[in-house]
């Protein structure tokens, strides 16, 4: 690893101003992504996955959000120290993002064509006709039938799956080197999910982009990710290459996640099957956030946040008792999918 990684996040802490003061939605999160690599981020709802991705893109509204600490480097350049104008030039061009909400992410009063062409013309000073051609080609590439006609459609004339394809086309129109995909398929039905994930994988091999793929779904992770970041309550619980994660999960939360996934191919296996719930933001547990739900928890766990330990090359765990699995915890109670 001599060249700078595509994306490097170090000690990221993102705070939100709320009625109860400033609380951290993401705390001390670090990870790196190489060009051409797919990093999966998993964790249950509210664990800070979207906030992490939006922090990288610089899309959180400030206020109430604020980056409290950390550094985000893209191709070696410090995004947080960069003038707003330079950072904006990267957005939509070098780094694209696909959101969780396909139904509401397109502007209802502009045509699909207008919304893609606009991105292209913002970053590459092309004549209108050339930008249109590229937009049509991109729509065709993401699998939209009769793309030239669809250019004139408004979002409300398209189905959810089609809208998400348009979002992917917008994100890809300027050939980004980094794609942040925040649960791009969660809101869609199962067959469409599979189609879109196949599409993303094809595009990834074709273009060699680095992808951060956020999902709830361990099956998707097993199939698409090279490396996995498991998040819990705004912190990294475990990070590992995908095989290591499934073969030898070290964090009790990861163990639960995998135990709760019936099959790797299946699309079921939501994360809600581990007993208990996420602590509320700012509840200020002094120790490990997972302690209330953890079968291994000891007094030491509740005293201070567990440090990150490297248990194998590229495999990091934030757990005091990573090497002391409790019998029975891998058989986390299952809820039929």
């Amino acid at each position, binding site marked *: 690893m001599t060249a700078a990684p595509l994306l490097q996040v170090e000690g990221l802490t993102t705070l939100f101003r709320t009625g109860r003061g400033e609380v951290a939605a993401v705390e001390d999160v670090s990870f790196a992504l190489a060009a051409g690599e797919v990093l999966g981020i998993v964790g249950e709802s509210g664990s800070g996955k979207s906030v992490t991705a939006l922090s990288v*893109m610089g*899309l959180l509204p400030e206020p109430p959000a604020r980056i409290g600490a950390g550094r985000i480097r893209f191709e070696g350049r410090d995004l947080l120290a960069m003038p707003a104008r330079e950072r*904006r*030039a*990267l*957005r*939509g*061009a070098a780094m*694209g*993002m696909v*959101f969780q*909400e396909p139904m*509401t*992410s*397109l*502007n*209802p*009063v*502009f045509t699909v064509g207008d919304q893609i062409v*606009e*991105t292209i013309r*913002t*970053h590459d000073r092309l004549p209108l006709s050339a930008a249109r051609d590229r937009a049509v080609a991109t729509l065709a590439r993401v699998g939209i039938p009769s793309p030239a006609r669809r250019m004139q459609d*408004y979002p*409300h*004339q*398209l*189905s*959810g799956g*089609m809208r998400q394809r348009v*979002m992917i086309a*917008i*994100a890809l129109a300027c050939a980004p080197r980094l794609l942040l995909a925040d649960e791009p398929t969660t809101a869609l039905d199962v067959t469409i999910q599979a189609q879109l994930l196949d599409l993303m994988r094809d595009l990834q091999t074709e273009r060699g982009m680095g992808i951060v793929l956020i999902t709830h779904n361990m099956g998707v992770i097993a199939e698409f990710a090279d490396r996995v970041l498991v998040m819990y309550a705004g912190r990294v619980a475990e990070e590992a290459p995908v095989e290591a994660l499934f073969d030898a999960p070290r964090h009790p939360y990861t163990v639960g996640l995998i135990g709760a996934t019936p099959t790797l191919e299946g699309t079921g296996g939501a994360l809600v099957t581990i007993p208990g719930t996420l602590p509320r933001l700012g509840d200020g547990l002094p120790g490990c956030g997972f302690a209330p739900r953890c079968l291994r928890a000891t007094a030491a766990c509740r005293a201070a946040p567990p440090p990150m330990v490297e248990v194998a090359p590229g495999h990091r765990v934030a757990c005091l008792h990573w090497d002391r699995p409790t019998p029975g915890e891998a058989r986390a109670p299952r809820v039929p999918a």
Partner: protein
Amino acid sequence: MAAYALRRLLQSIPLLLLVSLIAFGLMKLVPGDPAMVMGGPNATADEIDAIRRNLGLDRPFWVQLGAFYWNLAQGDLGRSLLLGQPVGAAIVERLPATISIALYSMGLTLVFGLSIGIVAALRHNTIVDQAAMVIALLGVSLPNFWVGLVLIVLFSVQLGWLPTGGYVAFGDDPVGWLRSATLPAVSLALLQIGLLARITRSAMLEVLRQDYIRTARAKGLSEWKVVGKHAFANVRIPVVTVIGLIFSVLLSGSVIVETVFSVPGMGALLGNAILRRDYPLIQGGLLFVAAALMLINLLVDILYAWCDPRVRIGGDAR
């Protein structure tokens, strides 16, 4: 789009018929003998007879109704008792003053209402936002005749910049028109600026929270494009409806302001007609105002459809 406009136009015909019936019925609703009411307490029997014949009140009901519509179809609204002039001509004569002042204050309302509302939303929860909303609240709470009087004292009496009243037609002297129309337009506009600013601000705040605004930023668009194009195009939709209402109010709110500034407009004309019980003029005015409001509504609906493709192009997700 044209078909949509035509359909809406046809839909307004029944309503117009209803209003004309009400206008006709007005004469029947006058307590006692309308001719006597109009003649006043000192009128002789001959004078009252003349009024009765003039209005056709001596003829049977159905004949009166038929004659009313027959004349209406020919654009004949009858003759004003007071002015001794055809009602249509009287209205046409007074119209330019009222409409030009209403358009002027509409312009002021749009420019200031929209910009104050947008700036307040963009500076949400800052001192700028609070100041803008205090100004808007003042605009809403001050009665326009009082504002008119204060403006006259300030700009006409004290500073001597603008005339205290009267009206100069635009065609005769554009600068004179501007001088004579400014104070009435401003005093009419103040309330509406306050209203529009508040509505624009809340619409803008709502739109800025939407996912597609985040998408626009994710595409790397400048803040100007995000707000000026993506947000504004959606803010327009609720605002257009309000603008129609505001214009109706500006047209009808002119009664008091025209009196304060002695502008010879529709408001003053109809106000007088009502005070003096000039029924043909009231009838004509009612018909005219109803038609104007319907036209405004029609324009608003068309604008609305033009702003929102979900209305213009029906059809759900395929």
